């Protein structure tokens, strides 16, 4: 497949890895933001190609992992209503809520449907005028414009039986939260290439300057990730700290203004709770007042309070790169993909699940 296969070429990967090894004169710690990048690093074994001193930390870029427990419980409560069809991306179905998950309540009779696109949920709404369709609108800035477009079109078409349970998060505030922590170990970032395809890279310039960290806008295929790592190492070795776009085939410096325009029409920034981390100011999106009638929590009178996590789960530490999943006392024993204690063990993008599923074997 064009624009995919060539970025998985083994010989080129080894070339870039050799250049990284040649360039690094000391150990460096680099964090990739995006769960998709974590997935690729694990699946292809990119850490194995890197010299020993280059450590990769896995960031909180997994919207599945950071969706607050209260929102999962709200989705489950809504799904259980006989008048509701809950539409969701497949990723959310196995995420544990306080007591159960969407897959289990589906087995118990709730109408929960997997959709590929928020527009599919709109279609379900149009075809089922006597039911309430709730779409579980999760994601980072990449998914926000599509989720916004579905709401915008619902308003245009007067689809009064459509609403969204919103849990949208923003990347730059999360990066700041990680860097401003006393025990911050991250020295450079691989910024999420698809997020930057929407937002552009301007928001990252002040972060790079304030915290003196190189930021490479990076794609998702093995060559992209290695290229992003090479750029970070180059800057770190040279004492530079700026934003460089290593994913220019998709991400323009000013992002996608058309997509941002719909996003800003429907959503506005607000404080957001990140599961395992806590509240980060201005780090989420909520519906603007003009679209409040499409907010599922308002429509169905849910108040979405905070819910405590299992004590043993150290998801927050893992998501902020302060420790590896293997440091958790429950990893692989009481917490596995079959019986997850927290969200990062559920989604393949989650660091814990990625470590478990793609674990290395001492050969």
């Amino acid at each position: 497949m064009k624009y995919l296969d060539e970025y998985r070429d083994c010989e080129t990967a080894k070339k870039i890895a050799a250049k990284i090894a040649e360039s690094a004169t000391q150990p460096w710690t680099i964090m990739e933001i995006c769960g998709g990048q974590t997935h690729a690093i694990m699946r292809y074994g990119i850490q194995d190609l890197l010299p020993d001193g280059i450590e990769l930390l896995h960031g909180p870029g997994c919207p599945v992992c950071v969706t607050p427990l209260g929102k999962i419980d709200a989705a489950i409560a809504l799904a259980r209503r006989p008048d509701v069809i809950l539409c969701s991306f497949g990723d959310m179905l196995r995420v544990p809520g306080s007591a159960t998950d969407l897959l289990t309540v589906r087995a118990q009779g709730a109408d929960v449907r997997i959709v590929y696109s928020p527009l599919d949920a709109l279609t379900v709404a149009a075809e089922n005028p006597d039911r309430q369709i709730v779409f579980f609108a999760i994601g980072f800035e990449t998914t926000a414009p599509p989720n916004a477009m579905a709401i915008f079109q619902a308003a245009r078409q007067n689809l009064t039986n459509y609403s969204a349970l919103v849990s949208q998060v923003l990347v730059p505030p999360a990066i700041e939260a990680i860097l401003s922590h006393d025990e911050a170990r991250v020295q450079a970032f691989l910024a999420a290439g698809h997020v930057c395809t929407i937002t552009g890279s301007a928001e990252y310039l002040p972060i790079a300057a304030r915290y003196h960290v190189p930021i490479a806008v990076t794609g998702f295929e093995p060559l992209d990730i290695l290229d992003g790592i090479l750029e970070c190492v180059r800057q770190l070795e040279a004492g530079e700290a700026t934003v460089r776009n290593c994913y220019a085939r998709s991400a323009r410096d000013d992002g996608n203004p058309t997509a941002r325009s719909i996003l800003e029409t429907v959503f506005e920034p607000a404080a957001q709770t990140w599961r395992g981390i806590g509240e980060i100011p201005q780090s989420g999106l909520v519906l603007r007042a003009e679209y409040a009638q499409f907010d599922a929590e308002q429509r169905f009178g849910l108040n979405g309070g905070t819910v405590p996590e299992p004590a043993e789960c150290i998801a927050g530490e893992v998501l902020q790169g302060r420790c590896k999943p293997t440091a958790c006392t429950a990893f692989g024993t009481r917490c596995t993909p079959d019986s997850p204690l927290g969200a990062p063990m559920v989604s393949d993008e989650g660091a814990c699940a990625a470590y478990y599923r793609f674990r290395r074997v001492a050969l």
Partner: protein
Amino acid sequence: MCLAIPGRIIELTETDPLLRAGRVSFGGIVKTVNLAFTPEAQVDDHVLVHVGFAISTIDEDEAARIFDTFEELGEFQEPLP
């Protein structure tokens, strides 16, 4: 996050700006994709698709340029073991 896959536009099916859509081929399977966020994209262009929306048009020059950089990496290095 953000699984987005490159595909080639094989037909434009709707031209209303907000509903702009096209049939996009991913290695032979075809899906109708919303093109509202890529108003410049035309038939035969490659777009990056996330949850049924094209979020960017792939810049072929940039895509090629990165491989020139990778080529150059090879020229100044010791042979690989």
